[in-house]
C-alpha cells in the first residue's frame, strides 16, 4: 500500500496513493500506517540538495539536532554542495556524519 507521509509541524499528513482501501488491502494499509508509530526516528536523512551554503552556525545547528535525537537515530547528510562539502571537510565533521550522494541513494543504502 503506497502512502505518502508528510510532516507539517506536529501534524502528519498520510496520503493514500491507491484508489481502494478494501479487504484485499486492509492489512497492508494498517501496517504502513503503524510503521510511523513504532519506529519513527530510526534514520533521518537531511537532504541538502537545495543548500548552496552552510556556515559554522549552520553546522553547529546540524550537530545539535543530531545530539538531541540521541544514539538510536542516525542523522545522515545527502547531496552536499561544494561549499557544504568544504566546511564539513575542513572541520573534520565529514568523519562524523554518514554522507550520501543523494537522498535516493541514502534511502537505497
Amino acid at each position, binding site marked *: 500500500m503506497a502512502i505518502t507521509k508528510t510532516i507539517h509541524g506536529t501534524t502528519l499528513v498520510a496520503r493514500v496513493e491507491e484508489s481502494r482501501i478494501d479487504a484485499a488491502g486492509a492489512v497492508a494499509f494498517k501496517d504502513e500506517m503503524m510503521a510511523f508509530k513504532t519506529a519513527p526516528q530510526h534514520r533521518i536523512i537531511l537532504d541538502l*540538495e537545495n543548500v548552496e*551554503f552552510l*556556515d*559554522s*552556525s549552520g*553546522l*553547529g*545547528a546540524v*550537530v*545539535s539536532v*543530531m*545530539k538531541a535525537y*540521541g*544514539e538510536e537515530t542516525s542523522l545522515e547528510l545527502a*547531496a*552536499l*554542495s*561544494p*561549499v557544504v*562539502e*568544504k*566546511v564539513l571537510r*575542513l*572541520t*573534520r*565533521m565529514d*568523519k*562524523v556524519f554518514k554522507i550520501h*550522494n*543523494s537522498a*535516493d*541513494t541514502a534511502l537505497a543504502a
Partner: protein
Amino acid sequence: MARAFSANPQSAHPMPTAGAELSRTIGSHLGEVRDLVAKVRLFLDQHTGNPDLCQRTEIVLAELLNNIVEHAYREEGAGRITLRIVLCETGVRILTEDTGDPVPGGVLPEGLLPATDGSLSSLPEGGFGWFLLRNLAHDLSYERDADTNRIRLTLPYSGDSKPNT
C-alpha cells in the same frame, strides 16, 4: 538528484579581473550579513573564473561578519559594519571595520579545531568559526584605532587551505 562534486582546484583558472573592488556598509544584523555575503558571492562569480576561490571567500566572509555581529556588537543590533573587497593578482583582499567591543586582549582568537572524535554528546556545536577563518585566510591582521576595529586578510588565489593539522 546527486550533485557532481566540485572539480579539484589545483587546475589552472583564468586570472581574476585585477583591480575590481566592492565596498558596502551594513547594519549589525545576521540577515544583513546573509544578504551581503550572497551579493559578494555574485560579484566574485562575475570577476573570477575560480569557483574554489569564490567558495573559500564566501565561507570566510560569513564567519568574519557573523562574528562581528555576535561578539563585537554582542548581537544587540546597533552598529555598522563596513566591508571592502579588492581583487588583485595574489587573490581576494578583505577589510572590515566596526565600532564594537575590541577583540579581547587585542589578539584574534587562536581558532583551534574542536575535537570531533569523542562520543555523540561531546561533539562541538560551535567554535568552528575562527578555525575556518585561520585555516582559509592568509595575512590576517587586527588593529584597534580609536573606537574602530579593523580586520584585514587575504584569500590566496589558489590553494584550498593550509594543511589540516
